[in-house]
């Protein structure tokens, strides 16, 4: 079983929820403003983390605010890049280029804050 994996603490509830919500367990939105180095880095860092910790059960939506500025208001975006965890609730916000993996995991509730 997957109990022995390194992510055993989160793997267990994840498995449970997979049964209830088979798709889109992790619904993530990444807000960026244009193709800046920071936003590209953020996207790359995010996909890496998702691959590793969410086992493909995730969906990332990238919102470019330069194209859709009105979308910034809904999620109260101020800083970019901002990653918003829409699902599972509660909504979480992570700002920055996501280079600090530890903090991203804490921010996504994948790891408890110390």
């Amino acid at each position: 079983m997957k109990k022995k994996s390194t992510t055993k603490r989160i793997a267990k509830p994840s498995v449970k929820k997979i049964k209830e919500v088979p798709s889109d367990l992790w619904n993530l939105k990444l807000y960026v403003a244009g193709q800046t180095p920071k936003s590209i880095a953020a996207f790359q860092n995010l996909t890496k983390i998702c691959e590793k910790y969410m086992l493909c059960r995730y969906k990332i939506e990238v919102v470019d605010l330069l194209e859709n500025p009105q979308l910034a208001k809904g999620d109260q975006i101020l800083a970019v890049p901002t990653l918003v965890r829409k699902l599972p609730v509660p909504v979480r916000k992570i700002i920055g280029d996501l280079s600090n993996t530890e903090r991203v995991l804490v921010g996504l509730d994948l790891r408890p804050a110390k």
Partner: protein
Amino acid sequence: MAKSKLNKVLSGPGLAKVRTGIQGLDEITGGGLPKGRPTLVCGSAGCGKTLLAMEFLVRGVQEYNEPGVFVCFEENADELAKNVASLGFNIQDMVTKKKLFIDYVYIERSEIEETGEYDLEGLFVRLDHAIRTTGAKRVVLDTIEALFSGLPNPNILRAELRRLFRWLKEKGVTAIITAERGEGTLTRHGLEEYVADCVIMLDHRITEQISTRRMRIVKYRGSLHGTNEYPFLIDEQGIVVMPVTSVSLAHPASTERLSSGIPRLDIMLGGKGFYRGSSVLVSGTAGTGKTSIAMHLANAACKRGESCLYLAAEESMNQIIRNGRSIGINLEPWVKKGLLYFHSTRPTFYGLEMHLVSIHKLVLEQKPKFVIFDPVSNLTAIGSNAEVQNMLMRLLDFLKARGITSLCTSLTHGSSPIEMTEVGISSIMDSWLLLRESEYNGERTRVMYILKSRGMAHSNQVREFVISNKGIDLTDVYVGAGMVYTGAARLMQESKDEAETFARSQETGRLKMELDRNRKIMDAKISELRAEYDSKEQELKSAILQQEIKDKILAADRGILAKKRKADA
């Protein structure tokens, strides 16, 4: 060269300004805020920063057709709309008409995890979007410092804010940025370092339990501005800033004269009464009849058909009307006709500035020709003499500029010199009536004189001031034997004088009669002597005649005798 430079600055062509539309603020900034530049408004909590910023936008929409964007970091749009609705701003309507865009930026520190490099492009995008959709010319960021508590890494923030202000300038929008006042600095996070074109400081001070809001322009690059602290207040129509003194002493001077309603007083005032638009001060100790004079003047003004505003700081309207009846003045019909408007408030009800503004508003609403302030000395309860003097000066200037005649009464305390008003306002008054009471012979009487009356030949006489149920009358005081008598003493002295005069006239009569009698005696004697003389003369004359006849007879007899004797001779 220096001169031409100065002139340039004074006439101010170099710097374009945007009128805020806030009463008084445009005056002290010399035309408004710097156009296309950010202005920092700082102050402690509750001093009206948000309101000032909001009014800037609302006036922009209403009066200058300039749309605005309000980015709030502390309140959401609904709360904001409700808060400013109390000031009569219907921002909901402007929002639906796309004249105003309210963007609530909410940041919760606990919900945010920082994971690396970031910038505030999101805010820029939102602002840009808002400015584009409304075509905004005015932008408010209220209170941007909330970002410091909401976002980690102040270094990034500072750099981003600097970029934001530069960006706002590039956009050409006139912006107001509000900030909380810090310890020893203008703002808590040193925003004045970035926004340095114009800094306005708001302040809220409490002196003797009465609060006054004040505004000061700390700096204004490239423009002259008033440097004083200007009191301002927030009333149901927004912010009103009061420039402390009027800009110029250029009010019109009417030559029209107004009757005071007391005939004798008019005579004392050069025969015609006060000038229209002049300021009259009635000062005196307690119970000398200041309010009675005020009522007479109010009555006279209403009789002329002029509207009159009575600011009563001591008595209620009903009390004044009742008291007026006791001296034969019925003010009630005028109130019913709408010619007389009473405004009764305790001075301690609110601060001096609020009083001033409420009077301003009343004057603008009621458009009176005549304003009575009874008494002004009560204002010292809520401000120092200098402040009250300042306030009255502004009030009188305001009234004079509109050609409104004003009457202020002032209570002088018994212990202080009589020719000194409590608030030292005599120098700004055109006419000054002084009421005094004199105690003599176990009674108090009132006397009045005109201490000054600019621009007219006025009486220098002291008059007794008599209040009866027919109103006020002025009578001559009794001046005689080096003394001034009033009241009963005057009456006594008068009757005494009368008796003396009577006695004197009787004496003269007696002397005249005696002279007459003497003359008659003399005349009688003269006629008696003459009669005696006449009879004597007659007697003597006849005796002489007899002698002559006798002589003739004797001579004739002798001739005959000789003839008879045949004398030879």
